[in-house]
């Protein structure tokens, strides 16, 4: 079943590329806008770009993730695919896990790959770029996982996006803090190991808890239908 579920996710991804491209375009656009609108803020801090750029990058990453989360379950919810997963699958938990994984693959993972470009736009030094990519790689799974819990509970709402943001942004805060600091540390030459541990730990805790919570949330939403 895992193979079949992955195949379907891949097929959908290929046919609805906009769902992947739009949030990433949003990220690139807003990052660029920031640099255009406030070039001095980026480059004139006492630590150079280190002061502002990491926070800006991570905030925009969070907002992009919110954008991508909103529709995470909606198509399957509306079409009845979701309820079929829960009724027919021997282990519905696995389908949820796969959905979350694909969500991460199509947002967080690609954002991590784009980190060098984003970092360059924001004026980060070259030495900081690998750490930036790693920070995103380690931190974005937590965003997808925790976000999926909020998405699971709000999928049936008409204007669920606002409530989703409200539920999920407080949970994103730790990743934001450690992620931004990791970039900053790399920029000024501090060790990034503490942040690596912290980000990994948060993502692991999220991995242990979030899929179960998301499944529970989906069951609640399906019962509302």
């Amino acid at each position, binding site marked *: *079943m895992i*193979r*079949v*579920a992955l*195949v*379907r996710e891949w*097929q*959908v991804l290929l*046919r*609805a590329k906009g769902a992947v491209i739009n949030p990433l375009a949003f990220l690139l656009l807003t990052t660029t806008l920031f640099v255009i609108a406030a070039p001095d803020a980026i480059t004139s801090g006492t630590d150079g770009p280190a002061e502002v750029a990491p926070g800006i990058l991570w905030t925009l990453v969070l907002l992009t993730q919110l954008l991508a989360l909103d529709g995470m379950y909606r*198509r*399957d919810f*509306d*079409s*009845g*695919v979701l*309820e*079929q*997963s*829960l*009724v*027919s*699958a*021997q282990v519905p938990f696995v*389908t949820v896990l796969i959905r979350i994984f694909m969500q991460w693959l199509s947002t967080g993972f690609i954002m991590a790959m784009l980190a060098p470009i984003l970092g360059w736009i924001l004026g980060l030094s070259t030495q900081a770029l690998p750490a930036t990519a790693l920070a995103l790689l380690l931190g974005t799974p937590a965003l997808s996982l925790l976000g999926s819990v909020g998405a699971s509970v709000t999928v049936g709402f008409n204007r669920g996006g606002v409530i989703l943001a409200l539920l999920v942004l407080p949970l994103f805060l730790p990743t934001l803090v450690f992620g931004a600091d990791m970039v900053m540390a790399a920029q000024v030459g501090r060790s990034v190991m503490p942040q690596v541990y912290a980000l990994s730990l948060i993502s692991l805790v999220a991995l242990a808890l979030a899929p179960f919570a998301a499944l529970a949330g989906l*069951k609640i939403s*399906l*019962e509302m*239908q």
Partner: protein
Amino acid sequence: MTVQPLLDVNALSCERGGRRLFSPISLSVFPGDYVELVGANGSGKSTLLRTLAGLHSQFAGEYRSKDALYQGHRLGLDGLLTPLENLAWLAGLEDHTLDHDITLNALDRAGVLTKAYSPCSAMSAGQQRRVAMARWLLSSRKLWLLDEPLTALDASAQDLLRYVIAEHCATGGAVICATHHAIAIDGKSELRLDTSIAEGR
């Protein structure tokens, strides 16, 4: 060797918002049974089927069932995917891999072979329902829970539905079907939901 029931229901009454929707029902469904759920709109037919499918958790009483195939108002077909891809995925949920030819054969029997390679969103509602019926043919589940399967079906599709259900019951399966219009199946039994308990409040 006694035949095991596919479904055992004991004093089951579905609830919504703390209220019972209908008087408790008890029944056993054996291979070959066709049970028609009748009742007015809002009598709880859909809720009962969803409860038996495991999608609705508010109820009193108990039920025990083998894994069922559930067909609700939403078809469970992904519009971006072709019928072939949808059927492969739906079968995959039940953990079996479909042979390509067998799948095409099922689509042919359902009368939508020509659409096998187009995305489902490009098909009419009636055609999508035929794809859903093809899915039933390929499923290994013995118990079918169907909610208003006659919706959007033209005359020939209705005949197909009748045939498919009859064939399933004849080959050891059972069907519980909620429908406004009776479906003529030999040996059918009717289950009427008594909603006076809900109205009496």
